[in-house]
C-alpha cells in the first residue's frame, strides 16, 4: 500500500482538467504534459508543474511513452493517470510505467491485453457464462447445418461473410423458410466480392440499445458495479448523449447485467474502474460487446446518480486500498444526463468545425455540472478531438433532468465554433427521447437538420436592429477616418452621435 502524493496526467482537454481537479481536491501534487499548441491550455495552467513533450501530432507528443515516463520520474511523480484515449488502453505503456517503479492508475497490463483482443475477450466471456451475441465460431459447412444453427440461435439471424465489409455478403433472415435462398445468395455475393464464400451465422439483434455497466474493482478481489449508462444516442457511431439510469432498465435487469459485468471483470483479473458494454435487444436480452479498460467520457452520469467520485476511487484503488463500500451500500438517486459538446456542424452532417471561442460562459446552477477543457479565448484546432466540454445535469427524476438539460443548453453561451448544442436541444424535445423509446439508430431515424428549432421573429428583429446599428456605426467610422466614399446629404447617423457621446450601446 503506497501513498500517492504526486500524479502525472498523460492527457489533455476536459479529461485532464477533470483528473487535475480531483487531485487538487485530494491535496495531491499534479504534473501536466502538453504539446506546443496546448501551451496555454487550462490543463497546463492549473497543474503544479507542466512539461512540454513535443509538437501537435499525438505520435510526437501525447503518445511518447518514454518521454512521459521520464518526466514522471524527474518531476517526482508517484503515479501516472492516462485518462481516456491516447495511452489509456496501451498494455505496453501500463507495463512500462510499472517497470519504471511508478503506479499506473488503471488495470493490470494483462487485463488490457485480454479485453483488447475481440476474439480472446469473446471466448473468455463464453467460458464464464457472460452472454455474447450467439452465433457460429466457424463458417457454415452446409445448408442443413445452417438450419440447425439458426434454429438454435433463434430467428431473426444475420448471415455474415467471413471476408465481409460494407454490407456485402450480409443478409438478415427472419424465418426458417427464407434461410436456404438467403444463404445461397450471400455466398454468391461474397464469392463475387471477395473471392471467399465462407459465411457465419450470428443472432440479429433487433432495435438494439447500447447500455453499459460501470465496475470498480480493488486489488483485494472486491468488485462492485455502479449501475448502467444508456448510450444509444449516437452520431457517426459515437456516443453524444448518455444518461443513467436507462429508461428500460429496472432493478432486476440492473442486478443481472451488473452481475454479468462483475463476472466479466473478474474473468480478466480486473482492478480499477472499467466498463462493460452491452447490446440490449427489444426483449431486453443483453449481449457482451466489449470492455473498456479505462475511465470513460460518460463517467459523470454514474458519479451523479451514485454520489461516488470515480477518479478519486481510481486513485484510492491504485494505492492498494480496499473499496470503501460494498455492493449493498451503493444507492442510486435521481437521474443524470450528459451532452457531449463537440465543435461540429449539426446542420452539415456533424462535420467537425474549428475556431477560437470568442465567447464562452457555461451554464450554472443546481444540478448543472460543466466538465470543460477550454476557457474563453481557447482555440479548437484541427489536431485533436472535437469534444471540448461536457454538460451534465442531475435531476430528481428523468423528467426533471430533461427540463434541466433544456435550460442548461439554452443558457450555454458560446461563439466562435459550431457546436452540437442545437442537436442536443432538439433531442431533449423529441417525443421518442422523452418517452425513452429509442435505439442506436435514433439519429438516422429521427433527426433531420431542417427540423432544428430556429429563433422566433422577435429574436430575428433584434438581430436586424443590431446589424443596422453596427452597419451605421461602421459607415460613420469609415467616413470619419476617410475610409469610405465621401458623404452624401446624410453625414452622420443619429447612432454615431450616441456612440460618441457614450450613449446607449457604447
Amino acid at each position, binding site marked *: 500500500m503506497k501513498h500517492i502524493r504526486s500524479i502525472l496526467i498523460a492527457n489533455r482537454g476536459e479529461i485532464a482538467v477533470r483528473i487535475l481537479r480531483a487531485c487538487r481536491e485530494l491535496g495531491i501534487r499534479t504534473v501536466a504534459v502538453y504539446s506546443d499548441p496546448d501551451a496555454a491550455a487550462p490543463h497546463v495552467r492549473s497543474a503544479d508543474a507542466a512539461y512540454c513533450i513535443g509538437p501537435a501530432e499525438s505520435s510526437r507528443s501525447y503518445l511518447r511513452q518514454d518521454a512521459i515516463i521520464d518526466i514522471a520520474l524527474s518531476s517526482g511523480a508517484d503515479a501516472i493517470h492516462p485518462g481516456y484515449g491516447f495511452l489509456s488502453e496501451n498494455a505496453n505503456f501500463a507495463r512500462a510505467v510499472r517497470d519504471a517503479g511508478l503506479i499506473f492508475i488503471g488495470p493490470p497490463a494483462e487485463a488490457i491485453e485480454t479485453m483488447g483482443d475481440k476474439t480472446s475477450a469473446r471466448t473468455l466471456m463464453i467460458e464464464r457464462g457472460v452472454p455474447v451475441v450467439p452465433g457460429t465460431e466457424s463458417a457454415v459447412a452446409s445448408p442443413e447445418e445452417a438450419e440447425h444453427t439458426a434454429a438454435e440461435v433463434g430467428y431473426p439471424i444475420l448471415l455474415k461473410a467471413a471476408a465481409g465489409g460494407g454490407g456485402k455478403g450480409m443478409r438478415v433472415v427472419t424465418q426458417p423458410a427464407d434461410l436456404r435462398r438467403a444463404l445461397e445468395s450471400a455466398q454468391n455475393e461474397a464469392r463475387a466480392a471477395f473471392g471467399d464464400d465462407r459465411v457465419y451465422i450470428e443472432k440479429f439483434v433487433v432495435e438494439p440499445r447500447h447500455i453499459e455497466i460501470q465496475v470498480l474493482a480493488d486489488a483485494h478481489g472486491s468488485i462492485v458495479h455502479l449501475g448502467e449508462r444508456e448510450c444509444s444516442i449516437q452520431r457517426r457511431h459515437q456516443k453524444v448523449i448518455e444518461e443513467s439510469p436507462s429508461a428500460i432498465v429496472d432493478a432486476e435487469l440492473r442486478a443481472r447485467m451488473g452481475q454479468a459485468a462483475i463476472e466479466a471483470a473478474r474473468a480478466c483479473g480486473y482492478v480499477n474502474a472499467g466498463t462493460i458494454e452491452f447490446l440490449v435487444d427489444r426483449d431486453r436480452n443483453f449481449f457482451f460487446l466489449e470492455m473498456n479498460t479505462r475511465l470513460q467520457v460518460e463517467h459523470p452520469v454514474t458519479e451523479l446518480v451514485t454520489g461516488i467520485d470515480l477518479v478519486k476511487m481510481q486513485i484510492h484503488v491504485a494505492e492498494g486500498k480496499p473499496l470503501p463500500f460494498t455492493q449493498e451500500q451503493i444507492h442510486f438517486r435521481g437521474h443524470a444526463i450528459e451532452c457531449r459538446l463537440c465543435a461540429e456542424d449539426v446542420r452539415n452532417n456533424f*462535420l*467537425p468545425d474549428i475556431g477560437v471561442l470568442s465567447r464562452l460562459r457555461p451554464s450554472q446552477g443546481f444540478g448543472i455540472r460543466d466538465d470543460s477543457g477550454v476557457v474563453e479565448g481557447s482555440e479548437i484546432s484541427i489536431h485533436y*478531438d472535437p469534444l471540448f466540454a461536457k454538460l451534465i445535469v442531475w435531476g430528481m427524476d428523468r423528467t426533471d433532468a430533461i427540463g434541466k438539460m433544456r435550460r442548461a443548453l439554452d443558457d450555454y453561451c458560446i*461563439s466562435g465554433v459550431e457546436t452540437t448544442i442545437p442537436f442536443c436541444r432538439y433531442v431533449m424535445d423529441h417525443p421518442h427521447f422523452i418517452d425513452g423509446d429509442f435505439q442506436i439508430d435514433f439519429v438516422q431515424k429521427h433527426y433531420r437538420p431542417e427540423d432544428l428549432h430556429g*429563433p422566433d421573429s422577435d429574436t430575428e428583429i433584434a*438581430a436586424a436592429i443590431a446589424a*443596422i*446599428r453596427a452597419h451605421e456605426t461602421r459607415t460613420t467610422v469609415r467616413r470619419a477616418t476617410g475610409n469610405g466614399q465621401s458623404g452624401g446629404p446624410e453625414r452622420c447617423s443619429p447612432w454615431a452621435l450616441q456612440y460618441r457621446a457614450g450613449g446607449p450601446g457604447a
Partner: protein
Amino acid sequence: MSVHYTIRINGNEYTIERDEQGGFTVNGAPLDIDYPVSSRDELLRFRHRSFTTHIDETSPDGTSYRVNVNGWDMHVDLEDEKTALLRSLQSDKATKVHSALVRSPMPGKISRVLVNEGELIEAGQGVVLLEAMKMENEIKAPSAGIVKFIHIRESDTVEKNAVLIEIS
C-alpha cells in the same frame, strides 16, 4: 434623414425604417426599443423581452453580418435603398453567370475525390472525402450541375475555405 432597410434572416424578410431620431419601424409598425447599458455586449429590450446581441462577423462590404442574439446565431443580410437599386440594375447581367464553388469547411487532408470533371452531379451528392480531426468527412455539392474544375488531388492538404471544386 430616415433610412429604409430590407433585411433577410433565415429566409424571412423584414422591412425596417430607421428615422432621424433613431426610432425604428418594423414592417410598417413602430417598435419602441430600450437600450439598457451593458458593458460586455449590446442589450435591446422591446415588448418586455430582453435580447443580448453580439456581432460576430461582418462581411468586407458591410452588407452581411453574423449576429448572435440570446445564443441564436444568425446570418443577417442588409440592404439599404441605394444598395437595392444598385443590385436591381446589375441583376440582369449577374443572373447569366451561374456557377457554384465547393469550399473546404475546415483544414484537412483530401482522402478521396468522388467525382470527375465533366460529370453531372446532384445537389447533396458527396464530392470529396476530407480527413480532419481524426475523422473522414464527406463534403457535399451545394447545388446540381456539371463538375467544371477540380482544384485538388488526393492527399492534398487544404486550408479552411479553400475552393475544392467548381460546379457550373
